[in-house]
């Protein structure tokens, strides 16, 4: 009998997300429905505000990928008002963005995603000497002695025996979809803990330039952190040296821990190539070497790929009123011109209209509206955004660093490029681009030093700081590539205030409900056809959903088609 699985809350994401899936006789997912179960109304709250304050409000959209909305917002307001930022501000923003990408990907791999592949309890059975041998065979990372792993295993044993499993309570330990030998599980647990400690170091770069993390400070017109190597009241050689050391340590950690772990773990899952999904990929691009207008200067290019055809790259223009649109046929909003008609963000509307069941409820009606997410489309196509999209686009364009790293990873795994179109491919792409962004950190640090050497200390352009100097009615677009994918902000400024503000976030592209024509989004597409060993323990479903790094969050129950809860199983 076909079953309906409800996974809600979904942990290890940001925000609140619900997945309902129909599972066929052979436990293969036949159809899936993605529901964003929260709405905060920030677009409405931004109306009437001072545009110079918008970045702070927008930044609070997400504290996991903190910084990215602030960046998109200042770029958006500067675009509208015609403010050109100094070169140092461009470089510092790029450095902060690369820092965010790198830290966010590292945390995602080890703390949000690894437990979909790594069985923590199995690590208790490992031979620490063998773990040590494996560790030393794949990396020169110094923490690799038999004693180190033995000590960790003892502590882990004590933890499990205490009966208080904390964050590991009720995990799917012992699930048949876990494929790693105990020794590799122990290695991964060790690096889970090491990465947990190391991630907090990387973000100190935000603290240097933005005063704090999470939620560093930005400024319309540039950055507020002054530079002066002759004073201890501004960025000087002491603070720059801290930044440089963090960059060096980060590059080492990515090269010696993350990448070797990724390859080692993926090696045991290379037959599990489900979750490819749409095959359409969209990138706005980021990391400008000159201005944001000059898209040829972006280190991460802009473009779109359709149907996995890497031979054709389509031009993307988010300002084109016909290209990027959002409709609400299955979303809890209403449009004045009809819910099925896509609107460009500059014409966008945000009028909440919840028509779902009154809570508490067991099921949602997917024929009707079923999500707080709108449905974005590019030229009417559903698109996947994020690391896989960016890596594929760069691969297609022949970026040498990306080509080398992709080929190295594929070679070590002994699989062809088609393996990229999968859950595992998405996870691998994140690691590959993390190595790239760690390199960007060094690149922008060196660029900043070169500028300072030339005597350029300028960090902000305040010529248009006063609202009286602004045009009375303007529109702007700001973009970035967030860790989770293409992010756009669109603003309309009228008489010194925000008239309208629309945001299309990466997880809206990926997690959107289906459109009026029934075309599904990236999550829903990727989940179709995934076999599950035990629908009661939806490990494989979580694996694919987590590979997108969802930025929403929460809960789960398992039901059959008649809405009856199927037997609960106690785990651990």
């Amino acid at each position: 009998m076909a079953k309906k699985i409800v996974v809600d809350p979904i942990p290890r994401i940001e925000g609140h997300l619900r997945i309902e899936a129909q599972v066929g006789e052979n436990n293969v997912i036949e159809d899936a429905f993605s529901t964003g179960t929260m709405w905060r109304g920030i677009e409405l709250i931004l109306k009437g505000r001072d545009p110079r304050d918008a970045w702070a409000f927008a930044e609070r959209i997400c504290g996991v990928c903190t910084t990215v909305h602030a960046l998109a917002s200042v770029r958006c307001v500067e675009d509208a008002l015609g403010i050109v930022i100094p070169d140092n501000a461009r470089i510092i923003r790029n450095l902060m963005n690369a820092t965010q990408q790198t830290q966010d990907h590292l945390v995602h791999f080890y703390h949000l995603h690894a437990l979909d592949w790594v069985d923590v309890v199995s690590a208790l059975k490992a031979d620490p000497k063998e773990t040590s041998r494996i560790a030393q065979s794949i990396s020169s990372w110094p923490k690799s002695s038999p004693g180190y792993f033995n000590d960790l295993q003892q502590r882990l044993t004590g933890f499990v025996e205490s009966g208080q499993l904390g964050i590991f309570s009720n995990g799917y330990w012992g699930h048949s979809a876990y494929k790693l030998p105990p020794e590799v599980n122990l290695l991964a647990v060790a690096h889970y803990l090491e990465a947990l400690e190391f991630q907090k170091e990387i973000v100190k770069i935000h603290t240097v330039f933005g005063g704090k993390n999470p939620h560093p400070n930005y400024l319309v017109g540039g950055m507020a952190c002054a530079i002066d190597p002759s004073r201890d009241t501004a960025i000087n050689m002491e603070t720059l040296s801290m930044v440089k050391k963090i960059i060096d340590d980060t590059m080492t950690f990515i090269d010696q821990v993350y990448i070797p772990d990724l390859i080692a773990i993926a090696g045991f899952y290379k037959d599990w190539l489900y979750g490819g999904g749409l095959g359409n990929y969209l990138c706005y691009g980021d990391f400008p070497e000159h201005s944001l207008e000059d898209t040829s200067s972006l280190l991460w290019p802009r473009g779109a790929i359709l149907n996995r055809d890497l031979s054709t790259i389509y031009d993307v223009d988010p300002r084109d009123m016909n290209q990027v649109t959002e409709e609400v046929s299955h979303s809890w909003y209403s449009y004045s011109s009809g819910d099925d008609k896509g609107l460009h963000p500059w014409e966008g509307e945000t009028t909440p209209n919840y028509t779902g069941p009154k809570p508490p409820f067991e099921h949602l009606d997917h024929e009707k509206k079923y999500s707080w997410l709108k449905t974005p489309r590019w030229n009417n196509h559903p698109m996947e955004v994020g690391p896989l999209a960016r890596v594929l686009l760069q691969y297609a364009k022949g970026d040498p660093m990306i080509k080398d790293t992709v080929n190295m990873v594929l070679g070590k795994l002994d699989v062809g490029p088609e393996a990229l179109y999968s859950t595992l491919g998405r996870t691998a792409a994140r690691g590959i681009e993390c190595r790239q962004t760690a390199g960007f950190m060094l690149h922008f640090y060196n660029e900043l030093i070169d500028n300072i050497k030339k005597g350029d200390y300028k960090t902000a352009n305040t010529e248009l700081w006063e609202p009286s100097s602004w045009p009375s009615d303007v529109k702007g677009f700001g973009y970035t590539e967030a860790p989770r994918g293409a992010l756009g902000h669109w603003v309309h400024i009228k008489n010194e205030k925000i008239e309208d503000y629309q945001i299309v976030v990466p997880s809206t592209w990926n997690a959107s409900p289906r459109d009026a024509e029934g075309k599904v989004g990236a999550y829903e597409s990727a989940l179709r056809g995934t076999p599950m060993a035990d629908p009661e323990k939806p490990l494989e479903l979580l694996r694919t959903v987590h590979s997108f790094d969802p930025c929403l969050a929460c809960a789960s129950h398992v039901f059959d088609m008649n809405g009856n809860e199927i037997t609960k199983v106690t785990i651990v």
Partner: protein
Amino acid sequence: MDCIDPVSAVAGECVMESKPTYAEIFRQRGLSRRDFLKFCSLTTVALGLAPSFLPKVIHAMETQPRTPVIWLHGLECTCCTESFIRSSHPIMADIVFNMISLDYDDTLSAAAGHQLEEVRHRIMEEYKGQYILACEGNVPMKDDGVYCLIGGDSYKNLLTETAKDAAAVIAWGACATFGCVQNADPNPTGAVPISEIVTDKPLVNVPGCPPIAEVMTSVITHFHTFGTLPELDRMKRPKAFYGTRIHDKCYRRAFYDAGMFVTDFDDESARKGWCLYKMGCKGPTTYNSCSKTEWNDGVSFPIGSGHPCFGCASPGFWDNGPFYKRLADVSFLGTDTNADKIGAVAVGAAAAGAAAHAAVTAVKKRKTGNSDESVQNEG
């Protein structure tokens, strides 16, 4: 035995049977007595206590089990969790493996769906009256709470159910304490802070967007070391971290007193690190530890990196803008008299729950476009 009475319990008096203590956990993990004592010394230092407190800390650590924590997320951005995991002393791994049992947390838990909900129910039952409920985020009240649905129910219902048998409730961050960005005008979801829903439990408010990592973890360490909540002020904030204004401890204070102000984000005054009061700094009215503890293991803080404080630990700060307008047209030449007056009035506002009033006043200001005056003057 009701072991963890956060108001009256004395450290070390309560022992829950059959659960390992910190000292036992150290032994189980093959760590020596020496390691354990070292850990206790570091904890004492981290809590800012005199060395004479060390025996008390050791006694508490030897006799108390790891307290279960259920960490719920409402309408929020997860910046509080992200800040928490940045703690440098103690580090996150020590907290979750040695100090507390973080049994339910959307952001880190391995389990999903009903298996995760099962953990929450088990903790509520097995540790009735003994677990800590930590909350991140606002509670949307409008339209039956449909703006935040978890497991097919509203966050409002989930929170009420989980709070019922908690020993104490910690409200993390601006959202849970006073109402953050969702709660800003026009508050489309009817978002409210925890204190409006949970009214019959000991509550700790830890404001900030987010709060400083070590401030967050100190609340946890204090509870587990002494078995009591830290001393709180009238707004239920730990006095140790929210007792004085950022302005009072700011290294730029001397420039304020001397009347030397930044007037442009890119001129000599900015590079010389003068006072940011004229750029809209809310340090004179904001009670937080940023200028003392600083952020991310003491690297910097907003003012230290040249940006004015926008008062993220204060009630209603989102509607007390625009951020870059100076607080009030007060005299500042050579004396701090007027700024201190602002602070004094802010303390007055804190009493008797005037926070909501301040927020409403601020909304009124924003709508009329007259925000140059300090809301605290009306508080």
